[in-house]
């Protein structure tokens, strides 16, 4: 019990929460979470209807390597919020790729498009659009006043 206490309070880096169910598939090395899914690691917090997380062995432990998020995806990274219909995060390169009706919102602006690639380590954002009309930039109130 002491081990469980220290585990949950001191040694935690992140978590997965699911409102409906979670399936651990040890043969395919994956976890599938359903219903109001929340995932947090040391980089960001993500919300979605469904999540599939693949893991690999790393020494004595196992770590999540690829996180896929499905439907109503919201990712909060520092002061930015990314939204889309599908997202995939790869731990290897710390890149988040979102597709669908994508948006990226910061305190000063809102950008929309069809694909967003967020390179966390290099602090780069690439927003692609299916056509010129779908790429929109909106200056938010704080920035507009300036």
């Amino acid at each position: 019990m002491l081990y469980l206490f220290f585990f949950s309070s001191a040694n935690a880096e992140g978590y997965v929460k699911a409102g409906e169910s979670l399936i651990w598939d040890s043969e395919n090395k994956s976890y599938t979470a359903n219903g109001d899914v929340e995932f947090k690691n040391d980089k960001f917090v993500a919300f979605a209807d469904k999540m599939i997380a693949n893991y690999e062995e790393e020494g004595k432990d196992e770590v999540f390597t690829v996180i896929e998020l499905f439907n109503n995806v919201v990712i909060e990274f520092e002061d930015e919020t990314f939204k889309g219909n599908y997202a995939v995060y790869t731990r290897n390169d710390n890149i988040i790729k979102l597709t669908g009706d994508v948006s990226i919102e910061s305190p000063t602006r809102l950008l929309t498009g069809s694909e967003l690639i967020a390179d966390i380590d290099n602090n780069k954002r690439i927003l692609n659009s299916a056509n010129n009309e779908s790429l929109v930039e909106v200056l938010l109130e704080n920035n507009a006043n300036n």
Partner: protein
Amino acid sequence: MINYLIKSIINVLIIIFLGAQSFIYLINQRPLTENFSQKKMTVENFSSIVLSNSGITKIGSEKLNRFDENNFYLEGKSYLENKEYKIYGKNISINLSSEISYSNESVEVVNKIGLLKAQGFKNYDYDGKILFEGEVEFVIKK
């Protein structure tokens, strides 16, 4: 002549007696076996080892109820433990032939990723899948 008759009568009696003994032995054997296999068995503070698809699993509970050779019920605080996970729960049912164990009580699982808490579980051991139903929280260790 009289001696011969006495010997013959004794031989016949011995054969009848042995035959009766054998008959009684056979009659007694059959119901004994059936009664034994149908008997429910209960053991307190139980722990044992089960060999299944995921390897050797150690099981234990405050009380073990054995319904038949395939169906067990781990009553009270119970655990399942192998090289992949440690499941701590209450009132866990185990079917050895289908390799399924489940519980509708709150459960905590410790594995190589972290600590998982759920409202219940169903472990499809033959398939390597564990389903946790209801609200689930999985704390990832550093």
